């Protein structure tokens, strides 16, 4: 025996699928219920926010080799700017923007460094925030992803491997390159070569922005400089003596660049982990030089 039921007609919902939503990073069309872009894996929340609030955030890239300290830098920067509003205030947009700050600071307060950022772009933390600068009424909208260093290196070595990296770097108006000063001081040229490759890659990118890459601001931040007085006092001189290739590359190809030194952990030890092997452990947290490169970049980006 057949039993008849009344099925509500919800075909109007299909109309939403008919309207494509372009990804904010690569501009590929996606359906309205996509969480990540099907082409580059950027979170579609960025596009939804931009559309619903009629905003066009600028993009700032924080890149560097694996273990250079990108996650710690970004998390610490966000927390410092949200704690002391008199210098510059940061207001996160969307709950997803606070995840990076939350995980980084929770780890640091336990005297641990945050876990390594996974290579999969859909697992990266993104920060969409508003910056309020003293004396300026207009808020600046900014997007900063925490990209994995290995993914960036892979894209630099084999272009188009990570579409998100390329698409983001093409569109961003400024870049912050983190270089591990401890490894530079040890004399290994690995950091020097990686940064040179990255700079070459940047200078050959398409000009998605109005400015050519040669004119866009590039802040080179020498991280882990706590125990390196030479680096803290004069980062440019340190780079000239310990990363000659990088220094000359910047002089030749990037008209707007500056070297900075930063550090977060006052002292570091190591810990043998069953799963991760030898893991670095901060013995105390004393951030230095975190806000300065960001301030410098924002000033140049506004010009």
């Amino acid at each position, binding site marked *: 025996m057949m039993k008849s039921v009344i099925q509500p007609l919800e075909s109007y919902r299909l109309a939403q699928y008919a309207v494509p939503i372009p990804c904010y990073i690569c501009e590929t069309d996606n359906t309205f219920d996509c969480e990540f872009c099907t082409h580059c894996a950027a979170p579609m929340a960025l596009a939804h926010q931009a559309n619903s609030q009629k905003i066009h955030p600028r993009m700032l890239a924080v890149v560097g080799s694996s273990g250079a300290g990108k996650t710690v830098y970004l998390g610490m920067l966000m927390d410092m700017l949200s*704690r*002391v509003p008199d210098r510059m205030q940061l207001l996160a947009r969307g709950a997803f923007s606070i995840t990076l700050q939350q995980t980084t600071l929770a780890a*640091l*307060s*336990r*005297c*641990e460094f945050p876990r390594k950022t996974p290579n999969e772009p859909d697992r990266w933390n993104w920060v969409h925030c508003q910056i309020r600068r003293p004396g300026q009424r207009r808020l600046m909208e900014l997007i900063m992803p925490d990209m994995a260093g290995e993914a960036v290196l892979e894209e630099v070595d084999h272009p188009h491997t990570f579409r998100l990296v390329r698409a983001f770097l093409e569109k961003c108006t400024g870049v912050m390159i983190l270089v591990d000063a401890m490894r530079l001081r040890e004399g290994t040229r690995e950091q020097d070569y990686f940064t040179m490759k990255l700079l070459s890659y940047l200078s050959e990118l398409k000009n998605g922005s109005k400015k050519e890459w040669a004119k866009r601001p590039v802040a080179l931040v020498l991280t882990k400089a706590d125990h390196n007085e030479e680096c803290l006092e004069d980062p440019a001189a340190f780079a000239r003596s310990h990363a000659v290739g990088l220094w000359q590359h910047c002089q030749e190809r990037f008209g707007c660049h500056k070297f900075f030194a930063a550090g977060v952990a*006052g*002292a*570091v*030890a*190591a*810990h*043998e982990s069953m799963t991760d092997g*030898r893991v670095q*452990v901060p*013995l*105390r*947290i*004393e*951030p*230095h030089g975190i806000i300065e490169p960001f301030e410098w970049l924002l000033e140049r980006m506004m010009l």
Partner: protein
Amino acid sequence: MQVPKNYILPAIVLLISLVNVGLGWLMANVWPAIAGGSGLCYAFLRLVRPVRNSSAKSPRKQPAAVRPRVPKPRKPVDPNDTDALVEQMLEQGRFALLLRPQISSKLDEAQFSRALEKLQESMALVPDGEVVLGRIDEALEDGELDAEEIESSRGRVVGVERFFLDRYPITNGQFYEFVAAGGYQQMSLWDKTILPAVLDLVDRTGMPGPRYWTDGCFPPGEENHPVVGVSWYEATACARWLGKRLPSDAEWVKAGSWPVALSADERTQRKYPWGNTMNPHRANVWGSGPGRIVPIDQFAEGVSVGGVYQLIGNVWEWTGGSFRSGEHPAGELILPSPMKNIRGGAFDTYFDNQATCQFQSGENPLGRRHNIGFRCAVGVCDLVLARSPSARKEPADREPAGGERTEEAVEVHA
């Protein structure tokens, strides 16, 4: 309008000279003209020079007037002149040395009283008792650890004898006394193991002294700031010169957390010297202070129960203990080099939980960091705190056994 007095005479000379020049020209006589010309030159010089002086010389004089006081090294004292030596030692803050049993018997009553006054003025008495070093129980019972882990992580109880602790960290001015007295050249003050490195303990200009000093002297206007840029060995040598020592970890924690025994097994101790909650008005840490080291008399509200200031914040403080990785929140660690303990946090310490009495961090003992200073301690049993009026005349008869002397001292300071 008032004319300055030093302009009146040149003005009169100017008038007379003009008249003379006029007369000389009218009479076609050279001599009045020459006299008038000379007068004009004189008047011109007198009128112009003050203006030039005021514009050129005053800026050079002004910095001299506002230049901060730079301490001068003390004049050498005749080693045979005991009174002068005692005076100098009191001025240098070496009263603890004068109160040692071997020396105090040679002091007269007035000198002994002054040394005792200095002790009470600059050091606080911390009573004996037990203190818990390591993680405080409440931090362990947050549900993340099981019973076995809690038991293994629980702090160890350490007994502490009565001792005096400096009320303030050692300042630049106090450390200057050590430097000026040739502390870096007195090898007896230094650990033998470190002797080869002492020559390398120099300031920015290559003179013996803390790392951030210049020409053997602290930066102008920072006499009252805690000394920083000193290694653990420099701190130890200075403490020895003062007749003191670095506090042990248990002593440092006891002075700050002021434990109280509730029963034989239970005790309560504070997280911060003022209580269990961070108060940004009481400590110079990141976010609450000006972002730099401040003089020792600031943040006085952070005083401990016993009257010790700035235990938390401003600068980390070296203690006598070696950094043992097991007591760090991260557990067993592999250290890049042997480390000594530092405690209390500094002006740039970011997290409140790293600026507590319990938290310890480590630093290479040769490290001369921008935010690490020290304060000194001395055991009550090491000092003579009271004596009979006939003590100076009969030193051999007066000297009591160590235990008796300690009891006597406690009565004086109770």
